[in-house]
């Protein structure tokens, strides 16, 4: 049996405790400002609508039996009901605007509202992707400006803007690499090398493109094992995918040598740029030998995470890969700005199109607004403050918790393992859930896989020192409680969240993935 996992195999996925904090349970399920809110399907709103519409001038009779007859099953709410419903739901979410959100690898930084306002300007938000290009010159120019900023910040000659998220960017990079090898007739390269510590998207993307994945070992100090890399490089290797700064929050000291070795073996160097926030304005990936790197605009350039998306994952490309970039892209001449949309002429070698239209324009506007606000000086300060904040947290917690890599500075995230919890009966999961009770979102846990019981803390540069201190004091108090044997505080946590620990086992054993009417349920 071989397991693919989050390195927390066997950790409980159903609540273990029966300890209840309902000493004074309310009579309705509501709790102070937290309302108990039913699903919209349970509000008896089947025949209502929140729209005032004129009656259609003619009926749809000429569509014959194509017309939909049976009820669809979509309730409708008046505006006040809709506002209540979604505001009540919103209050059950943690948010950056509420408190520090230290998810390592996710870069939960402040989302400036100017960016939201700019994306909603009618000239950006209310233009169609296929309007005549003469009527959207400003939109295409904005794409060109964003491309200029991204190329300058990374020191790379080309950028493909259209990938819709980080993983889509990885796909873009590997497709360009695939096309470049194909163009050379080098079709025997069927393997991509990925460190054990990589994000799950790296091996998933490689497999998605049809490559086999082989893992590269890690050294004791949390970096790529050069000897292992060199031994595994050969004529069958298409690319290496290395995150830098890596998922342990460390800069790959030997990154230039890694690139040299890959190139010497005829492979390309794909860099996962998820952690670009740590080096923006201070280090250019183009100076490190990178061939392709995606930039998560929703991380480094602050477009909001929105509860899971949307993101954007532009990919910067080296000279070697640039000709294979996906369409469309922007060029300009004395007549104006143009989208190159077809794979012919100058775009004849493009590997194709990744999605309909031009990509995530709404995110381009937000990211450019963010970049212009910071400027070259502010962006450099972003990296410095992100790294400073992470090292501050590491320094202030290292006497109570065990840093996974104590020697030397970290970059933008501080990584701890769970050795310090040995003998306490408290696990990383329990500790994270207790953080919820103290008002903080847990850090990333059990990732990267190479560190036991990993706790990966990324504060980002937008946290004031006061908030960092509040966070540190909360973690210190919790660490002391764990070591003092206050086990129930952790095992039963959270006690003060909108819900207690959820039964994930039950959810997965008999999946209920949509609401169905109670009558139908009884009939089943």
């Amino acid at each position, binding site marked *: 049996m071989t397991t693919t996992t989050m390195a927390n195999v066997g950790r409980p996925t159903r609540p273990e*405790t029966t300890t209840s904090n309902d000493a004074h349970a309310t009579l309705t399920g509501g709790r102070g400002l937290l309302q108990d809110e039913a*699903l919209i399907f349970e509000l008896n709103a*089947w025949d*209502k*609508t929140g*729209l005032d519409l004129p009656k*259609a*001038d003619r009926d749809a009779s000429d569509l014959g039996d*194509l017309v*939909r007859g049976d*009820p669809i099953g*979509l309730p*409708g709410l008046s505006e006040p009901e809709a506002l209540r419903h979604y505001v009540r739901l919103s209050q*059950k*979410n*943690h*948010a950056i*605007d509420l408190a520090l959100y230290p998810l390592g690898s996710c870069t*939960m930084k402040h989302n400036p509202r100017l960016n939201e306002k*700019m994306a909603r300007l*009618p000239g*950006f938000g*209310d233009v169609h*992707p*296929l309007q005549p290009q003469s009527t959207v010159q400003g939109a295409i120019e904005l794409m060109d400006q964003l491309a200029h900023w991204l190329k*300058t910040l990374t020191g790379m000659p080309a950028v493909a803007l259209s990938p*819709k*998220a980080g993983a*889509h960017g990885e796909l873009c990079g590997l497709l360009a690499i695939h096309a470049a090898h194909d163009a050379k007739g080098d079709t025997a390269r069927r393997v991509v090398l990925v460190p054990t510590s990589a994000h*799950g*998207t790296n091996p*998933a993307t490689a497999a*998605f493109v049809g490559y086999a994945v082989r893992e590269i070992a890690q050294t004791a100090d949390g970096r790529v094992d050069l000897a292992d890399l060199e031994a595994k490089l050969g004529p069958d290797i298409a690319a290496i995918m290395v995150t830098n700064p890596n998922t342990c929050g460390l*800069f790959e*000291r030997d990154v230039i040598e890694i690139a040299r070795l890959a190139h010497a073996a005829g492979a390309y160097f794909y860099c996962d740029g998820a952690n670009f926030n740590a*080096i923006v304005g201070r*280090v250019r990936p183009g100076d490190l030998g990178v061939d392709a790197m995606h930039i998560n605009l929703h991380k480094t350039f602050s477009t909001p*995470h*929105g*509860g899971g998306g*949307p993101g954007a994952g532009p990919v910067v490309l080296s000279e070697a890969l640039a000709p294979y970039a996906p369409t469309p892209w922007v060029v300009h001449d004395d007549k104006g700005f143009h989208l190159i949309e077809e794979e012919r002429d100058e775009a004849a070698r493009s590997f*194709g199109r990744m999605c*309909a*239209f031009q990509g995530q324009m709404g995110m381009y506007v937000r990211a450019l607004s963010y970049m*212009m*606000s*910071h400027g*070259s000086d*502010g*962006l*450099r300060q972003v990296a410095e403050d992100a790294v*400073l904040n992470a090292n501050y947290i*590491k320094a202030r917690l290292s006497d109570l918790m065990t840093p996974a890599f104590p020697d030397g*500075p970290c970059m933008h995230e501080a990584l701890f393992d769970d050795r310090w919890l040995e003998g306490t009966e408290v696990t990383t999961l329990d500790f994270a859930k207790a953080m919820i009770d103290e008002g903080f979102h847990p850090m990333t846990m059990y990732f990267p896989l190479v560190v036991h019981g990993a706790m990966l803390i990324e504060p980002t540069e*937008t946290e004031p*020192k006061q908030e960092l201190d509040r966070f540190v004091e909360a973690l210190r108090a919790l660490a002391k409680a764990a070591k003092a044997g206050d086990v129930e505080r952790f095992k039963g946590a959270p006690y003060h969240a909108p819900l207690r*620990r*959820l039964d994930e086992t039950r*959810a997965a054993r008999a*999946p209920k993935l949509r609401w169905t009417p109670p009558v139908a349920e009884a009939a089943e």
Partner: protein
Amino acid sequence: MRYLPLSPQDRAEMLGVIGVNSIDDLFVDVPQSARRTGLVDLPLHMGELEVERALTRLAAKNTAASSVPFFCGAGAYKHHVPASVDHLIQRSEFLTSYTPYQPEIAQGTLQVLFEFQTQVANLTGMEVANASMYDGSTATAEAVLMAHRVTKRGKAVFSGGVHPHYLHAAETLAHATQIETVALEPAIDGEAKVIDAIDANTACVVVQTPNVFGTATDVTKIAEAAHAAGALLIVVVTEAVSLGLLKSPGAMGADIVAAEGQSIGVGLNFGGPYVGLFAVREKLTRQMPGRLCGETVDADGKRGYVLTLSTREQHIRRDKATSNICTNSGLCALAWTIHMSLMGEKGLRGVAEISHAQALKLRDALKSVPGVEILTPRFFNEFAIRTPGSATAVVEALAKKGVLGGVPYARLHPEGGFEDVILVAATETVTDADIKAYQTALSEVLA
């Protein structure tokens, strides 16, 4: 810098706590040759007013859809979105939260996803829907890969009515994974031609209704033929509002529905972000890409929601995952769900009927213009017209007269052989005066 809270004094104190002299000491692992001492060659920081001024200037160079008579479609539609939708999605708790991996403090997002999945399943007539994809085109590409996994067959057949960008996005991915793609010649009313192309190695047939030319098709017979040959039927929908008037793909036998949700809750945004809808038959659930939200209970027995069946996904299954997708289109899915909840079935059917009625009026108005031929036989809110000469030139000339009169098919597929065809769409936002303006402008352009 207004977004950076640390003061110089904070920074000095913190360096002291860390035990280093300067910020450079924290970047010592960067190779000497790659350390940049100066600033990159870009402008310095700007105040909010300056940024707003610069970007507003750029935005002003574009013709906003709402400012003119507007008839563009071809995969992105201008519908009216109630003001409360945009207000709600900008609430901090929705806008600035992450993927709901900690369900105890993400029930807001999770319940929304459960409602979204239910609405999408009901709208498409399918049993299970996921928590969104990037957009309709990437959902289509994923559907093809999924069909390949399910059937273990190597060929995907596309009708000539599938949106060329969707076909193209799917081909890009299929090529790398060595799935053969067969794209039938562009055809205004030829979805059923895929039946003749099905063989024993066909994993799926991909049809679109209404198709890129606007033609609505009953795909029941195509489903029967696909199933008889052991292939899956993928139905693509680029105009989600059409499902308020037309028979659902599920009712016609679809195995997978890949749809663009943009026209509900999401603006035009020059092409993105949009929201991909992905729905399947229940038996295919474990082969789906993307996140799924499921119902469960908490330690006190209270109902709640979690992300579930995650072993399909990249963060657990890594190279054996069903997809590499991680970030999806969460906030657009929220907007979709809120807009759908405001419409309800009653409102959705109303919007669909008005859109259809306006399109019929538009057809009649354009038919009366000398030289114009209507090509689409049955449609919801979009149809193809033939005009003398280059469609691109006609659309440009209309734009000069202040009418955004549609999309030249050749923009989507230059070698497709329809250089004189314009795709024209109408929604509830089109007024009778807009239709009159189009008719007049087109008459002048063609005169």
